[in-house]
């Protein structure tokens, strides 16, 4: 599986295009000043959210893969301003929603409470993204109609409404984890230089997949 396939898989699992993927073409404003400020607290929070999504089992999980730090780099460098603002607003919202649901901050929750809370957030995000898809489809059609009447140089790429912030976190967690050293070499199998090709090797159910 190459990187493109990994992104497709993540899109499939999370129901949204992965930002920074090859097929994400939106030409967007580039900010000169970083619109994001990732504090150590936020990185720690993202590590824990990530760990809830992909936990340590027999093999290390998101925390060991330093998913929080990775998310910081990706949101800072690869997200548009609009996506960044949805993401940063979302971090605040995650805390507030968690306090309402669990009467304490996400960091104070135990593993079970975190799992329960994020499962709830999954539902919210799914609903949000589904509505977004519906309204974006209408918007996209209008946009395309508008483009048809324009010279190609005046045509603009359609900029979709960003996904729910939780979807962003989940995508970056999956991408970060499965492209990390631990994810690729411990949870998955990786061989940098196979040396030969065999197109038919026996596979026993449960064996790890190749990382690449």
């Amino acid at each position, binding site marked *: 599986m190459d990187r493109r396939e990994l992104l497709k898989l993540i899109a499939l699992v999370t129901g949204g295009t992965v930002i920074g993927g090859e097929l994400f073409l939106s030409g967007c404003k580039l900010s000169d000043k970083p619109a994001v400020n990732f504090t150590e607290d936020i990185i720690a929070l993202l590590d824990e959210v990530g760990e809830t999504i992909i936990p340590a089992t027999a093999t290390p999980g998101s925390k060991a893969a330093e998913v929080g730090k990775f998310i910081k780099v990706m949101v800072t460098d690869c997200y548009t301003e609009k996506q960044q603002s949805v993401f940063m607003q979302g971090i605040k919202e995650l805390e507030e929603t968690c306090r309402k649901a669990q009467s304490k901050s996400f960091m104070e929750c135990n593993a079970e409470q975190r799992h329960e809370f994020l499962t709830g957030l999954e539902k919210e995000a799914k609903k949000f993204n589904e509505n977004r898809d519906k309204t974006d489809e209408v918007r996209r059609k209008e946009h395309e109609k508008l483009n048809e009447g324009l010279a190609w140089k005046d045509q603009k790429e359609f900029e979709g409404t960003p996904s729910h912030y939780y979807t962003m976190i989940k995508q970056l967690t999956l991408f970060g984890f499965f492209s990390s050293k631990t994810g690729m070499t411990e949870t998955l199998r990786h061989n940098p230089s196979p040396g*030969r090709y065999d197109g038919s090797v026996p596979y026993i159910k449960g064996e790890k997949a190749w990382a690449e």
Partner: protein
Amino acid sequence: MPDNQYDAIVIGSGISGGWAAKELTEKGLKVIMLERGRNIEHIKGYVNAMKESWEFPHRGSRTQQMIKDYPVLKRDYPLNETVLDYWCKDSEHPYTEVKRFDWYRGYHVGGRSLMWGRQSYRFNKWDFEANAKEGIAVDWPIRYDDLAPWYSYVEKFAGIQGSKEGLDVLPDGEFMPAMELNCVEKEVKKRMEAYYKGSRHLIIGRSANITQPHYARTNCQYRNRCWRGCPFGGYFSTQSSTLPAAMNTGKLTLRPFSIVTKILYDKDKKKATGVEVLDAETNQTYEYKAKIVFVCASALNSTWILMNSATDIWPDGLGSSSGELGHNVMDHHFRCGASGTVEGFSDKYVYGRRPTGIYIPRFRNIYNDKRDYLRGFGYQGGAGRGRGVEVAEMTIGTDLKEALSVPSDNWGFGITAFGEMLPYHENKVTLDKNKKDKWGLPVLSFDVEIKENEKKMRADMINDAKEMLEAAGVKNVQANDWGYHVGMGIHEMGTARMGRDPKTSVLNGNNQVWEAMNVFVTDGACMTSASCVNPSLTYMALTARAADFAVNELKKGNL
């Protein structure tokens, strides 16, 4: 000899330029190879070749800065973090698009031989005859038999793996042992060939990856990271193959950062005397003199050089008297096909990452098949077992991790069609004298589009893909069309076509510019038609053939 005097000048160091340098030096000529961009040294220069995914800060993704710096490259997959060094920064190399044209360029030693797709096929006999038979454009001045020995010659040196199939539509070559079809591809092949009673074929994609040690090169290690440059020399590139051969003769000078601004032309002798070079770093101008000039700057840049040469005699440049210079731009149109899943192989997996896929040679408009468009298309694709089994919706935690850590139950199978684009006179590049690059040089302006023939062909490209996969028992088959813009194939061809008549072509049958017999254009610019197969192997063969001719003519005193 003065120090700016050579026997031959080669402009460009990509696939064609590398071959020209190798052939001319090996035949004893003193050669200078001029490359507009920086040097990339074999192995040492492949800075990302040995990196693992986690060593890239964005794990290969594109950043907003990259999107800003590469406004053209961002239009498709080539823009990503792992190979960024190899593509020229669009923002520094502008051009004009009357119609959208995706021009993905590599400005460095080796050119796009470092990043090419490596698929290597011979044109067939019909490809060279079709223009004449159908009354399209002009006739090729050569036939398959003229090129066949040169295909053999370059295949033996480049190292092409593939299987002998005995097909007229896709002539066999001098192959290294073929890479293997995987178990699912073998099954699909069996079912498909049975269904079409042997009239359609599924074979391993022939590619310039070596399966045995070859000269100083190590055979392919099945990493499938060719695009980053191969430290084993596992695939053909200027760096791995033609450049070391040329250097071994002691007769080659390689000069990076050398933008050739024009070919110097002596109107009395009707010959080129050399070239003018702008040093890309110092902005100093130099002249190099030689008996012959090989123009291998990539199709559209070769034409750009001709357009800027001898303008005191021909306002539109050297080779423009036919009115065809800059015209008949071609590419291969693609980005459509079908994919689906194959059941019943959940007990099989693969080892290694094979750097090629499958190929389904053209079956339309050959023998008794007749469609409502001209020419045809082939398919590239393959089978793979993806990752991740289905999980209940909204799963997170251990279950999700486990589900994403194992192979999918079913294999995927997909094919993408590559179609021939006809040469149309009105599809052209011209000089835009109102727009200059940072060296003050005029830029190219593109006015190119696909027309009815290509659009009709695309309907077949999609429908046939779906039908074939379904006939082969592939499940959940989805047809796809991701949309195509000219240039995306990165197979720019035409604009200085070969022909039989100086009134209608730029080059003769030996790739000589009609108006300057010591100037040879042997890259994609020379193509009279495009076929539907990947063109690089044909550039290699044409270049080696022209170099042989040039040296013989020199010896005879004809140049």
